[in-house]
């Protein structure tokens, strides 16, 4: 007798399984979970904390906040950041001061761990939310974060 009850139970479980997929079949037009990338580029917005790449914000006077303390370079686990720095005379105080020549960031090496941004004492580098980082040429992944001719904002001390 268990032979027939097995068949009955088996068919019943199969039908309950089909009811789940059947329900989604009928409602799927509303509930598609996939995204139509890249058509939805305009509406696709990353969260504000999203780790896209490291950038150095500049204000309208082309000034950034990096003092060249190299804490980010030390914090980076895989050498994605290189700082080329120099010493010069600070115009305001007339003292000798360290400033950055180039803040080089290798996006290709970066693992987006966020340790450099944690380490930065002056909030000179932050995360950008862009997510399309692929390029056709690997050299384009090496970026200089400070813009040409930029200088450190007055009042930022290390």
């Amino acid at each position, binding site marked *: 007798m268990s032979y027939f009850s097995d*068949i009955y139970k088996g068919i019943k479980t*199969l039908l309950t*399984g*089909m009811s*789940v*997929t*059947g329900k*989604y*079949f009928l409602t*799927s*037009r509303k*509930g*598609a*979970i*996939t995204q*139509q990338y890249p058509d939805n580029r305009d509406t696709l917005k990353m969260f504000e904390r999203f780790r896209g790449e490291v950038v150095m914000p500049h204000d309208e006077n082309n000034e950034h906040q990096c003092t060249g303390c190299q804490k980010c370079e030390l914090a980076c686990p895989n050498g994605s950041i290189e700082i080329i720095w120099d010493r010069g005379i600070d115009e305001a105080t007339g003292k000798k001061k360290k400033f950055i020549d180039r803040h080089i960031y290798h996006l290709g090496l970066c693992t987006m761990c966020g340790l450099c941004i944690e380490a930065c004492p002056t909030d000179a580098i932050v995360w950008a939310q862009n997510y399309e980082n692929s390029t056709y040429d690997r050299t384009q992944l090496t970026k200089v974060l400070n813009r040409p001719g930029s200088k450190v904002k007055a009042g930022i001390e290390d």
Partner: protein
Amino acid sequence: MNISLNITETIQEWLMSMMPEGVASIAAMVTVALIYLIIFAVAGLYLVLLERRVAAWFQLRIGPNRVGPLGLLQTMADALKLVSKELTGTIKADKFLYNLAPYFVIVSSLMALAVFPFTKEFQAFDINIGIFFLIAISSIGVIGILLGGWSSNNKFALIGAMRSGVQTISYELSVGLSLLTMIVITGSLQLSEIVEVQKQGWLILQGHVPAIIAFMVYMIAGTAETNRAPFDMVEAESELGAGFHTEYSGMKFAYFFLAEFINMFIIAAIATTVFFGAWLSPFGITESLPWLGVFWFLGKTLILVFLMMWFRWTFPRLRVDQLLTLEWKYLLPINLINILIMAIIVWLNLTIKF
């Protein structure tokens, strides 16, 4: 409206007005074959598209929607891509059998299409052993699969092919017996007569309980015979990679792929013919317009095709020994008893006729 869909005779008569009789007969056969080939190659492609859309809707996705309006040209583009692809193969393959296998599969599935009565007249070949012919033809395809798996010189392909052999040989039995159950009612193997009998009610209603059991057995065995999930032992991508067609690429792979979908159509079409009255409309509502039979036939077939897709996207795959257990311990005994019951019902005249 008087559209003649009796294509074989129409074409033959038209050709006979131009050339001698013998030549015309051969030319008519070739023409009809070509028409069928083109129609069903395209239909097969759209079945692939249908499967992909249906799967997407089951899986909360959108499905192909980029190529052409609503993605309608997607499979055409895929086919073009496959045609232009390089035909790769293994060095130590048995070249002759390796190249032969895909044609075996596709030809055997296209052959079966000839006998279906899409309407009263739209039937290329009304052979008097129709059902027998269908069963015979549909079991040739497995030879192609066996050849492909054997000659590929790949162990995954070989395991897939052997599984396919085991599976098709077993399930062939259930397909045949469940159709035989219905033959008890009709008393004829000829498809046009089977349809004629159903003017008194579709066979699934005429034969009531045993007919429904036979239909369920047929659908299970039919799904197994097309090697589709949950019986896709042959491919079983999580076990064997791609199974018997691991080493095939380009158009040869496309033949296997297309054959799977045409086979699915055939299984559904047989069920439509035998259980659901082929081109007959429900309650005879379109009896005055016989060409609408195509619509009814395809409609019923597609519903059954959808059912098979629903199976595929819901159920897990069986293991190879469970597959055989299901056939030999469940389907076969049920089927044999079912034939007996059907015979008694027909003998005592307990069938329901309208």
